[in-house]
């Protein structure tokens, strides 16, 4: 099976879906001539022409609105945000148009749109450009929120997102674009809303999503050396959330650590913990512990940034704690 980067996996998904359906088009800042700020759209302008790969001015609210309008009249736009930090400007279109029009039109308008771009912190991009938005978006009824952590998941889920008849927010990672993984040559898709058990173990469940799936795997590797085998449940989609996968794992291991990239308060983890306490109460042998970003704007200083981010060491400490080892 070919090993390719996350970036190329996305690029393949875009290309394949644009070939498959000529209503699909890509729009955003620097997506065409510059081939994408992170080169995700490399070669697409040459392949599909400027009618289907459209450079926009720096107007997030504007081109997000154009996308919603195009979706209303039957096209299938993919709106690229240079990062989700900039997409805050377009939130009105995401929240008040895309997520609500099917409902408010009494079912007359589907909005088959994908909003995509890198999410979360990279390295030393400081407070305004290091934010994880999945919990903000997952809060909104009418949206689907997908956060793939591997090239395989990125391709399969982006194809499903493009084929979905409703708005999907697709959160990538700047630090993920260069990561590599096996991606089959043949056609495949991954259903939205289905978690993936990335590692199997009996001692504890680590429930996570997005970029943190990699952190969870690092932690799992180190825990094995301590004789601890964990389940790594990669949710992949945070809305809708795969409650069954959470339940199956926690009922097996009786303890859970929930790992996420964003802040603590009202984060994805709060929802996971809520499902666990409701569905798995009688299976719990320890309180669930969450690992997340420190409750501060992301510091610029390298040492402080490291201290603020969730990482493998913090995850390992949490696992040991729920196992009553420390």
């Amino acid at each position: 099976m070919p090993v390719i980067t996350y970036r190329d996996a996305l690029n393949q998904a875009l290309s394949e879906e644009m070939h498959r359906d000529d209503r699909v088009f890509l729009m955003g800042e620097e997506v065409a001539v510059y081939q994408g700020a992170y080169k995700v759209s490399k070669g697409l302008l040459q392949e599909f022409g400027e009618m289907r790969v459209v450079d926009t001015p720096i107007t997030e609210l504007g081109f997000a609105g154009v996308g919603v309008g195009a979706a209303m009249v039957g096209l299938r736009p993919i709106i690229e945000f240079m990062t989700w930090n900039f997409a805050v400007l377009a939130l009105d279109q995401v929240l008040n148009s895309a997520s609500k029009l099917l409902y408010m039109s009494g079912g007359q308008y589907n909005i088959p749109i994908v909003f995509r771009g890198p999410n979360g912190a990279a390295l030393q991009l400081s407070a305004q450009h290091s934010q994880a938005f999945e919990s903000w978006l997952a809060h909104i009824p009418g949206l689907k929120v997908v956060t793939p952590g591997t090239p395989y998941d990125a391709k399969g889920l982006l194809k499903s997102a493009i084929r979905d008849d409703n708005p999907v927010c697709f959160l990538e990672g700047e630090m993920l674009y260069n990561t590599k993984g096996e991606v089959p040559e043949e056609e495949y898709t991954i259903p939205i809303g289905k978690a993936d058990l990335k590692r199997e173990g009996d001692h504890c469940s680590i429930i996570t999503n997005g970029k943190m799936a990699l952190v969870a795997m690092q932690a799992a590797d180190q825990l094995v050396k301590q004789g601890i085998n964990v389940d790594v449940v990669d949710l992949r989609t945070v809305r809708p959330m795969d409650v069954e996968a959470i339940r199956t794992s926690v009922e097996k291991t009786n303890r859970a650590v929930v790992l996420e990239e964003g802040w603590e308060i009202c984060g994805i983890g709060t929802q996971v913990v809520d499902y666990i306490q409701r569905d798995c109460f009688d299976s719990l042998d320890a309180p669930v512990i969450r690992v997340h970003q420190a409750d501060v704007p992301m510091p610029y200083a390298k040492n402080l940034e490291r201290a603020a981010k969730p990482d493998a060491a913090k995850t390992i400490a949490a696992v040991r704690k729920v196992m009553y080892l420390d």
Partner: protein
Amino acid sequence: MATKVFMEALSPTMEEGRLVKWLKNEGDAVKSGETLAEVETDKAIMELVARGDGVLRKRLVGEGESRPVGDLVGVIAAADENIDSLIAGASTSDGATPAKAPEQVVATTQESAGASAVPQTQAQPQGEASTPPQQKIINAPPPPPQAQPQQATAAAAGSNGGQVRSSPLARRLASERGLDLSRLQGSGPGGRIIKRDIESAATQPAVAASAAPPRATAAGDFEDVALTQIRKTIAKRLAESIGPIPTFYLTAEYDLTRVTEMRAAMAEIGDEFKVSINDILMKAVATALSQHPEVNAHWLGDRIRYHHRVHLGMAVATNDGLIVPVIFDADQKRMSEISREARELAKRARERKLKPEEYTGSTFSISNLGMFGIDQFTAIINPPEVAILAIGSAQDVAVPDGKGGYETRKRVRVTMSCDHRAVDGAVGAAFLQTLRRLIENPLMLVY
């Protein structure tokens, strides 16, 4: 090869022991099985024996001092062996300065080591009244020492809340396996009972679940009936009772000759003077209770409430289940009043017409299954009460007449269930003695 000497669990409930007297000096040669010291447990003075050969190199506990089970109290090793690392972590004290004169300690503790020893701590239920002191335990192998410090910390943590902490999983597993959480030691934070505690408890003997193959069931083999409110309440209350309450049972057989004579004589005077044997027994119980407030009491967790008034609960079977209406101030009431009230309450109980205030507030309860032909039984304490009296049927029994022959006497067997947290064996026995005097001499009831 050095052998550590630990404070061993010399009784099933022992959590710490006081080293009464060392029988070996530092430097003495010892053989495995030889007695090293006398240790006072929560029950008796027991022998702590050597588990290895060598020289008793170090005594880490002074005479008169206490140590939790599992603590290192000494080291046996070869005469020239370096034992510094072994004793480095131990909480050392000067073994040469006894806190008390050893003889004195022995005398006082042996006195209290009998069958009805007063519990050392209220929080630790003891059930020794019905069993002899466990002298044999000294031959049992000690539990693994590494398990003990956890027990000690759990007990320390548990003693300030009084509440058993446990994870939801532990509670579920315990209930599936029929384990009583209050009897387990938690190894989690703050003494929380967690899965591993249940699993280690479950591997102990006695919990071996029956592995009988499940029998096939067919429709019609059974009928599922939803619990009525009263059934639920009974289940909850009685499970509460038999679970955490360390109960013991005292049985006595009373002669009813005079009671039956009295009853017959009263009935002869006129119908309005007719009473049942049970009425007379209730009157006797109420009178005895007024003289024994120690069994006319409520266990309230952090205290015992001894009642000055006698409110006698009487268990009544109804079609819906058991209910216990109360004859208030039963000791102040005449037999005719008790008789009338008992009849009335039982009737209204069966008609489900009792008001809540009529079946709450009892200070002691009785249960009589004599009319069902039950010779003798044990009843479950109705908490927060600390005792209940179970009355069997009046029976004709052949008893020695004192002249080498036998005569037939009417007798009844009663069994009192006592909550040992509040009532000790001798205390319960004293109450039953008073009751015997009253029942076998019912004229005293009019005194």
